């Protein structure tokens, strides 16, 4: 196995060809069975394709976990006057998440095949790959793949001789986390400031350029060819009843082995950390885990005996999100890391909604004060109160995301906050 971030316990479906440079080429991908699923889908009716994806129970891998087949079925049918769009959300920017970049750079055709199947299913004549601007290497690789499929008539007019025309355009963002939010992504694609839109109207009714639009995450679309090829039941043989299939777990932080590991949903968090990733670095012990990217509530070290599926993680009071597991050891300065996360949200707030625009930067300033020993006793209550006022009061959930790590870290690591209050010097804890 050439790919270094592999483990024998993994179930490698999407990641099966990571580390194989020729899997990037159309020839190499075809040799590995690529585009057979597209061929098969084009021979099916769009509704049948949607049914297969529905039956697989595939849920969106961008964080919200909405069933993909159901999402596709929201697209209006039979209205040929309105162009429909499929947008691939490759704006991966959630701290802790780095799966889509790997998927794009190792298996671009996997994503494009899934997207073309999706486009056929929802009647989209144009697929936009919205990739964050920083992803130069993956973008070059995807661009090359697009050129290959145009040359091979897998994209463009009359794809694979089916009479169906589907264009594919790579679109690069320019540095804005919020554009990963689907309505902000649409605004950004349209050449606007990347500010989330109020819903309704929902994208399926009036999305990009005012037309019916579906937005799918890279990983979601990468699963589609496998589902079409092997069927919904096969996909359901992985994972749990409500969270079927495999998922890339993005492992970062104080782990011996970091990287992307693919497992069926429902895999044990403890096993993932201690077995697959080799436990905590430098012989340290675990202090906390963020299981789904920086925007979800933090878990205490003694809360890691959970299964990593949408429902189980939610029962533990947090979210699976993008399955971006950030592991923190016992030396971690919790206040500093929460401050860093909140500063990120302050930096990335689009600035539309007042609770978020003002709240994120206010919270960051309070946290910075506490971290540097200038906290006041009532600061913690203020943090809690402001955090609560930022939940559910804005257009998108960036505001909620900024509040979540604060509220959960105060709940679980309050002593660290208290210890810093009023100290003249920052606490000794490093990193």
């Amino acid at each position, binding site marked *: 196995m050439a790919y270094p971030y592999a483990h024998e316990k993994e179930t490698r479906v999407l990641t099966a060809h990571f580390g194989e440079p020729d899997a990037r080429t159309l020839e190499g991908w075809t040799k590995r069975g690529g585009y057979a699923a597209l061929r098969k889908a084009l021979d099916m009716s769009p509704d049948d394709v949607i049914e297969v994806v529905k039956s697989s129970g595939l849920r969106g891998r961008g964080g919200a976990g909405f069933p993909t087949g159901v999402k596709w079925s929201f697209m209006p049918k039979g209205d040929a006057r309105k162009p429909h769009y499929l947008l691939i959300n490759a704006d991966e920017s959630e701290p802790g998440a780095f799966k889509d970049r790997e998927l794009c750079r190792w298996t671009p055709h996997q994503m494009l095949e899934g997207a073309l199947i999706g486009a056929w299913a929802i009647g989209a004549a144009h697929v936009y790959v919205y990739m964050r601007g920083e992803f130069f290497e993956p973008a070059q690789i995807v661009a090359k793949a697009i050129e290959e499929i145009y040359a091979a008539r897998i994209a463009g007019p009359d794809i694979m001789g089916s009479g169906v025309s589907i264009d594919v355009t*790579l679109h690069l963002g320019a540095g804005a986390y919020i554009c990963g939010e689907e309505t902000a992504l649409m605004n950004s694609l349209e050449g606007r400031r990347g500010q989330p839109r109020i819903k309704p109207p929902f994208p399926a009714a009036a999305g990009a350029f005012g037309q019916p639009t579906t937005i799918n995450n890279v990983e979601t679309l990468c699963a589609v060819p496998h589902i079409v090829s092997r069927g919904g039941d096969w996909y359901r043989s992985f994972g749990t009843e409500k969270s079927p299939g495999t998922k890339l777990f993005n492992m970062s932080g104080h782990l011996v082995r970091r990287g992307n590991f693919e497992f069926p949903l429902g895999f044990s968090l403890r096993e993932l950390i201690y077995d697959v990733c080799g436990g905590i670095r430098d012989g340290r012990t675990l202090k906390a885990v963020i299981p789904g990217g920086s925007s979800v509530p933090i878990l205490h070290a003694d809360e890691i005996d959970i299964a990593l599926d949408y429902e189980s993680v939610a029962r533990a009071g947090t979210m699976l999100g993008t399955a971006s597991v950030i592991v923190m050891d016992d030396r971690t300065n919790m206040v500093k890391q929460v401050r860093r996360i909140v500063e990120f949200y302050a930096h990335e707030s689009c600035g539309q909604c007042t609770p978020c625009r003002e709240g994120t930067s206010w919270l960051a300033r309070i946290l910075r004060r506490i971290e540097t020993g200038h906290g006041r006793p009532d600061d913690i209550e203020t943090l809690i109160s402001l955090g609560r006022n930022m939940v559910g009061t804005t257009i998108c959930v960036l505001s909620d995301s900024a509040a979540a790590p604060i509220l959960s870290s105060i709940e679980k690591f309050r002593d660290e906050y208290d210890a810093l209050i009023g100290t003249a010097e920052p606490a000794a804890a490093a990193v």
Partner: protein
Amino acid sequence: MSDKTTPIRGNPGWAGETGDFEHLTEADVRGVAHVGKRPVAGGVPGASCSYPFQLADKHPDAVLFEGPYAERLEKMRSRYPTSRGALLPVLNLAQEVRGHLSPEAMASVAEVLDLPPALVRGVATFYTMYNKRAVGRYLIQVCTNVSCNLCGADDVVAAFLEATGCEPGEISGDGLFTVIEAECLGACGFPTAVQINERYFENVSAGDVPDILDRLRHEAAIAPGAG
């Protein structure tokens, strides 16, 4: 499968450095050979937006949208139902040529896309990758967000600042470097992630910084006019 903690001296920062890619080269991992050099005119229209827009080779006074760039502009425009849709790619193109987006560059973009200039400014200032002022030949963006931060990103920033001798956001005396802190670069499993112009350097530790800078200085010396 091994857990290497010692960086590969001389060429730190490429994607697979901590892992063992066995027979894979950096070019294999980065896909450089497969991608090749893509045409300035953009190639297939659907891929025409893929160009980097932070190049070492840039000229603040370069003429925008001429020759192959004009061709690329037309390809970009052809991919969107509205001229506004092409705004981000066209801003990218302007920055690729000039290195940053001056008011004049924004005005030019507004003109070619027939958009109000204030709107173009509003969009350009929303996105952090658009440099609103000139940067060094190499724009060094160090991720200091949580996953990298846990693994010593603050030290990496400090090391870059010290080694280049410049303040955050300023251009170093030799014109080569600008160092800034960046938000999550989406390479959390390879901390610390550093983006230098269009290229990612991964698993960077403070100790790697002199080697990386040496490599960049060497590149600049052998190809002063090109990226």
